[in-house]
């Protein structure tokens, strides 16, 4: 069971860059990703939107293995700024976890 933590949502969204609300869960991004990162970006964004911080922080390695190649982004039918989102999420993790 996962508990929704609204303050985590606010933390990520504070950057204003993070925009995944248009995501309609189609899965094109995951299918196309050369890194084959199952989590990215569809599942990850869902966890972020719901503020399930623990699921996000358990998957730091996956989040950092994204190449920011934008293959997913150009193919996303909902025009989600996927790479930008990953970047802003890393920014939050850098501060929160790695304290940099």
């Amino acid at each position, binding site marked *: 069971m*996962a508990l929704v933590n609204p303050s985590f949502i606010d933390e990520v969204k504070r950057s204003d860059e993070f925009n995944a609300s248009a995501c309609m*869960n189609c899965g094109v991004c995951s299918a196309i990703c050369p890194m084959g990162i199952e989590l990215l970006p569809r599942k990850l964004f*869902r966890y972020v*939107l*719901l503020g*399930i911080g623990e699921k996000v922080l358990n998957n730091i390695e996956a989040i950092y293995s994204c190449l920011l190649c934008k293959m997913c982004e150009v193919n996303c039918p909902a025009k989600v700024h996927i790479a930008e989102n990953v970047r802003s999420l890393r920014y939050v993790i850098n501060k929160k976890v790695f304290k940099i």
Partner: protein
Amino acid sequence: MTNRRIGVYICHCGGNISDYVDVDRVRGAIKDEAGVVVAKTAMFTCSDATQQEMVQDINEQKLDGLVVASCSPKLHLFTFREVAKRARLNPYQYTQVNIREQCSWTHTDDKEGATKKAVRLIRAGIARTNLTEPLDPIKIDTVPKVLVVGAGIAGLRAAIGLADLGMSVFLIEKSRDVGGWVKSFGKMYPHNKTGKKIIEQLVNEIKKRENITLFTNTELVEKSGSIGNFNIKIRVDDQNHNEINVNVGSIITATGFDSYRPETGEFGYGLNGVVTLPEFKELLDNSDGNLIYNGKEIKNIVYIYCVGSRQDSGVENAKRYCSRYCCNAAVHSSIVAFEKKPKIHQFHLFRDIRTYGKFELLYNRSREKGSVYLKYDENEPPTVETDLSGKLRVTVRDILTFGEEITVQADLVVLVTGMVPAKNDKLIDALKLPLGRDGFFNEIHPKLRPVETVVDGVFICGACQGPKNSSESVASALAAVTQSASILKKGYVELEPLIASVNPELCSWCDECVNSCPYSAIERGQYQGQEVAVVNKAVCKGCGGCAPLCPKDAINLKGYTDSQIRSMIDAFLKETF
């Protein structure tokens, strides 16, 4: 045997019929039937050329009966009635036999069988036609006045529309105020006007029109008469309980809906902080700036959709329909909530989002502003409970998060409740309007006759016929206006003469037929000092329900008399070839 002169026309319908029915053999089989003097086949009987040929045959051969064996009368009944009229043949002396839907389309695997069936059907049609008599439509004078029941947005708009077409309108409303649900709505989509403002506007228009008489605190108690001339008794609930009789040509019912009230315990209803959608809208409209519930600031809202709609058929009195407007209303409310308080968190637990048409833009906007949508399976609905600290906890298995079980702590849970039929037993009884499976009033056909009912002259509009949003309600109100005006403006209506008639010589007023008639068309009358049954011509639908029940065989259905039916059965039973 018969001295009738009947023309029979058998249609190929392109190949629609002739690919499976051997029309030439059929023609051969029926051409010598009693009464038949012309028997022809045609590529398309409905074409101008064949119609012209029929007119010519009727005149030259002095035909007094016409049989067209073609498609369904639903398609061309009126086409061939017109042909008969053009040739000065009484249109009720024509019979259409359906050998397309009933033969060629249904028996593509058996050409021989289809051909034989066509022969039998046409013979029956000829037999019936042999016994037809000329009939005239029933003409009824109409009163240019309309009664509108219910002064919500639909009723108000209908009254204005009718008044502008020159009708006198009696507008009656059961409650003290007009405006129905809409008067209490805040800003509405897409025009952003408040419901209150819209109703005020309509009421102003009503006041400007002298030919509208508005009664509040008033109910309809009795209806008699029929299309064009109804006698209505209304009761005004003032000190004297005044009863007033009015005389109108048609009735428009616009009695609206009720909001579903959840059972205690249904999705936590009854717990502190669990409210219905109308309650939430009220809270939104009454708060400027901060959103407060019971003295506490609201930071997290959870919506649960489809409460009281789309219920499992296993549930007692299940409301199985989608209420259609609640997705839109909830999504819109969430946007209003963001406007009041941008930092709020809103979680929507839905089964399917049904924000059709323009409302899809609202759905997008709601997500852009930060609403998160979680999809639950109807077999695993969310649960709502209070934890030890008194906080509401909503748990749901979210299909979009890959079946993860997710718990949200909420300050407020909004149950997105649907529309249920308004309680109107007295009115239903007085108007004799049938209800549909879901308990709303039933139109004759949702697409083709969307505001007409089985009771001629009684129309329905707005949410009393099923869930509708306000603009859909207004659209249907205007449809009812047009329908009413089109019958009343002419000053008369013409009704089908194919109805029941009682032979007063035979009737013994046992009242069997009275109880069998679903339209209450049979009344008590007098004949040579005796009590007998009398059919109200304007009310009878010609359904035939009464005729077989009469123990005295006193009832006949015009156009389908006992002797006609018997002759048809005999014709069916002949050898085909």
